[in-house]
């Protein structure tokens, strides 16, 4: 080892960081070289002197000053302890600006949605007023009923947050499935309609309706009429059946006879039931044929008897099914219409109650209107808070991140442990 190499190892040797191998090599050199030995000794001595310099006296005012600073700091720390109270203004401002930029990008979207919401709200208000004062629409006809139904559906969609539309979709799927199973099969629907009609002349209306029944391959099922105290016929009831296909035409004709005061409509889809029965009937017929063949071959009395028993059971099933099919066919082929007929009330000389009539009902109705209006308002408020929630969450997250960044920067000067 040369002197130069040795001298380079001196500081590491003095400070005790030299590896055992290098220490050994260095010591070999030192034994040979007096100059290096003395150099190292003096450096070691110097290091020792520097390390053993006496303590610097701490000025007497140092500790009190330090104490004062510590008290000051912990007082400040104590006043700003609750994390939700301090240093949130800036993070929130930054986050809000950020979110505003995002919102600005999709503002058209949100505005569009809000508009839609308002329209829906108006719609539902209309519906509730319609329901509350039905007597204000005496010319109510079939079309009004339909539009009311539509309105109530859209109302449901708003209130139930799409649940209604989900249900509708589900029904549609079911129908699609069954129609796939009975493809090319004719739909079998039992149709019923009912009407309440105010007619000028009762007997004329009654006769016209009866005529309509026979005109459209149907018949009058039942009818009755009632009279008032003076013996005049004041109203009645007639139930007819007409060919299902011409139900709409017949209803129109009946409606034209007088003022429609209410109308109802119902349909029952029995397609599945009808074709199930047909399928079962077919199966039983096949079974009957094979039983007849067995019967021909049967020779012993017990065999014949048992086949007979089975044949009887199958035949009764066939008859029952045929009956059911006939019944369904008849129900679906012919729609039934119930018509309630009334004549206008005779002019009476009694005291007219005018606006006072049904006062309680009217109060109740307006009370319900108001309650409904309020409930709708609350529902829309909750729905609108749905818009706000993700935005608020986003603001909170960004504020947190910003705070962390600022905190990290502030702590950067304090070294890792």
């Amino acid at each position, binding site marked *: 080892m040369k002197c130069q190499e040795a001298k380079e190892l001196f500081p590491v040797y003095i400070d005790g960081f030299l590896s055992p191998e290098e220490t050994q090599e260095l010591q070999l050199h030192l034994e040979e070289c007096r100059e290096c030995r003395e150099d190292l000794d003096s450096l070691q001595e110097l290091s020792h002197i520097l390390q053993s310099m006496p303590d610097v006296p701490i000025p007497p005012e140092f500790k009190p000053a330090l104490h004062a600073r510590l008290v000051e700091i912990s007082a400040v720390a104590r006043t700003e302890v609750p994390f939700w109270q301090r240093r949130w203004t800036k993070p929130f401002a930054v986050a809000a600006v950020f979110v505003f930029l995002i919102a600005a990008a999709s503002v058209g979207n949100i505005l569009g949605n809000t508009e839609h919401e308002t329209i829906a709200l108006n719609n539902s208000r209309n519906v509730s007023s319609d329901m509350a004062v039905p007597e204000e629409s005496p010319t109510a006809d079939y079309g009004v009923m339909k539009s009311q139904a539509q309105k109530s559906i859209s109302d449901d969609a708003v209130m139930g947050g799409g649940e209604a539309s989900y249900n509708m979709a589900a029904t549609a799927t079911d129908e699609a499935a069954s129609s796939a199973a009975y493809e090319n099969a004719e739909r079998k629907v039992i149709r019923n309609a009912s009407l309440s009609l105010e007619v000028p002349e009762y007997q004329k209306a009654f006769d016209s309706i009866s005529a309509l029944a026979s005109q459209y391959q149907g018949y009058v099922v039942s009818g009755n009429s009632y009279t008032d105290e003076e013996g005049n016929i004041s109203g009645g009831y007639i139930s007819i059946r007409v060919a299902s296909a011409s139900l709409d035409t017949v209803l129109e004709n009946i409606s034209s006879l007088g003022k429609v005061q209410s109308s109802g409509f119902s349909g029952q889809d029995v397609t599945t039931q009808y074709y199930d029965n047909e399928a079962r009937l077919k199966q039983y017929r096949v079974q009957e044929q094979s039983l007849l063949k067995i019967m021909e071959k049967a020779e012993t009395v017990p065999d014949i008897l048992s086949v007979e028993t089975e044949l009887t059971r199958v035949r009764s099933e066939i008859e029952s099914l045929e009956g059911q099919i006939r019944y369904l066919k008849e129900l679906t082929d012919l729609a039934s219409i119930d018509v309630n007929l009334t004549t206008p009330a005779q002019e009476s000389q009694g005291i007219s109650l005018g606006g006072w009539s049904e006062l309680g009902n009217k109060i109740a109705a307006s009370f319900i209107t108001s309650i409904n209006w309020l409930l709708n308002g609350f529902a829309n408020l909750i729905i609108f808070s749905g818009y706000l929630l993700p935005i608020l969450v986003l603001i909170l997250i960004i504020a947190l991140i910003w705070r962390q960044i600022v905190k990290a920067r502030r702590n950067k000067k*304090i070294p890792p442990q």
Partner: protein
Amino acid sequence: MAFDEYELICRSQKGDIDAFEQLISAYQQKIYNTAYRMMGNYHDASDVAQEAIIKVYKALSGFRREASFGTWVYHITANTCRDEIRRQYRTHESSLDECIQTDSGEITKEIADFSHMPEYVIGEKEVEEYLQELINALTPEYRMVMVLREQLGLSYQEIAETLEISMGTVKSRINRGRRALREKITADKEHNPDLMRLVVRGGEKA
């Protein structure tokens, strides 16, 4: 870590000032020594030492006991001294990398400036002052390395990390710093018999 110290740390982390003062008292002297050797005067030393202790107090909640408390405290002290020295030299508009040009000896030119050293040294107190003057005369870069090593006892690795310089630089600065101080002492010894006990042997040119 001693149980007492562990308990004191826990209490200090909850904001107990008395506990913290008790805890830091064991380290206070070394912190002050370091600050004084580094800054060279009581005024700056008090400021830096207080700053370092306040930093320890503020950062205490983040202390996870992965290192010994002493090591951690000395790291903070070293960083505080470094920051203060760099701040002072920034305000004096002179870069640490620049050599301080003086009329004194060629050997010590880039390492220290002994031009303001007292000429005569008498008695023990003066010897200590003389040594402090020697350290003060070192350029900040050398002074920091020397103080961190000789006063605070940091390893080369720790010094390198604190000052953000390489291990080789640390080693070379320690070597050259020691030699520079030794040359100066050897030279002064001829005029000041009181210094005789400082560096007994040596004197040969390195």
